[in-house]
């Protein structure tokens, strides 16, 4: 019964807001190091991960990104920005019953590749996309 409840993702008393934040992963400064800190030893490029984002962002402070994974048993979706001071931007945990799909907005310091890293059935997969960050307005 307990095992079943856990498998179904039911929350046990006292656990509801037990927060953890992977400090080591958020302090990494390269895609390889982030992957390691997230617990992966390697990652396979996958065409089943779709990144929807503009090719050009008018402003790096707000860059909309949608990631959708077609990989069965997707458990987490992470967003990495290669040229940012800290590579890891976000890591979403996707329980069963929730679509392996998430939209958010990130800051980009400069034109860079962004990586979507998916953990599915314990294995790591990724896709990448370049987003150009332009200077808008009259400049400074």
């Amino acid at each position, binding site marked *: 019964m307990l095992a079943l409840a856990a498998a179904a993702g039911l929350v046990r008393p006292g656990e509801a807001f037990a*927060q953890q934040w*992977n400090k080591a992963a958020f302090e990494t400064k390269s895609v390889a190091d982030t992957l390691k800190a997230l617990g992966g030893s390697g990652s396979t490029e996958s065409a089943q991960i779709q990144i929807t984002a503009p090719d050009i962002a008018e402003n790096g402070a707000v860059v909309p990104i949608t990631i959708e994974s077609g990989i069965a048993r997707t458990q987490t979706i992470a967003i990495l920005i290669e040229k940012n*001071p800290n590579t890891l931007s976000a890591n*979403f*945990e996707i329980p069963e019953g929730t679509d392996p799909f998430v939209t958010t907005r990130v800051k980009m310091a400069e034109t860079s590749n962004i990586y979507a890293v998916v953990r599915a059935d314990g294995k790591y997969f990724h896709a990448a996309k370049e987003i150009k960050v332009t200077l808008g307005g009259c400049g400074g």
Partner: protein
Amino acid sequence: MADPMRIRASMAGDKVEVRVLMSHEMETGLRKDAKGAVVPAHFIQNVTVTHAGKTVLSAQWGTSISKNPFMHFRFKGGKPGEKVTISWVDNKGERRTDEVVISGG
């Protein structure tokens, strides 16, 4: 205290579509103020979304999520009239919880 979130949750077929805006500075810790002093990092670290006692999404965020964060996702198993609850906690321990009733499609 932080301003309330703006949450929209509505049915899309058999799934609940959730969109949320949060009011937060999301300071990187790298920005300098007008006097040249570094503004300390201040950002949401954890987000948890629950429905009927079950976590339907949880996230860890770093400093590069945009100011006034936005998030959109979908989950199965919700019905109109039921509640979706979203909580966040930031690196200074400030937190905020808001809920919304799922509307029909």
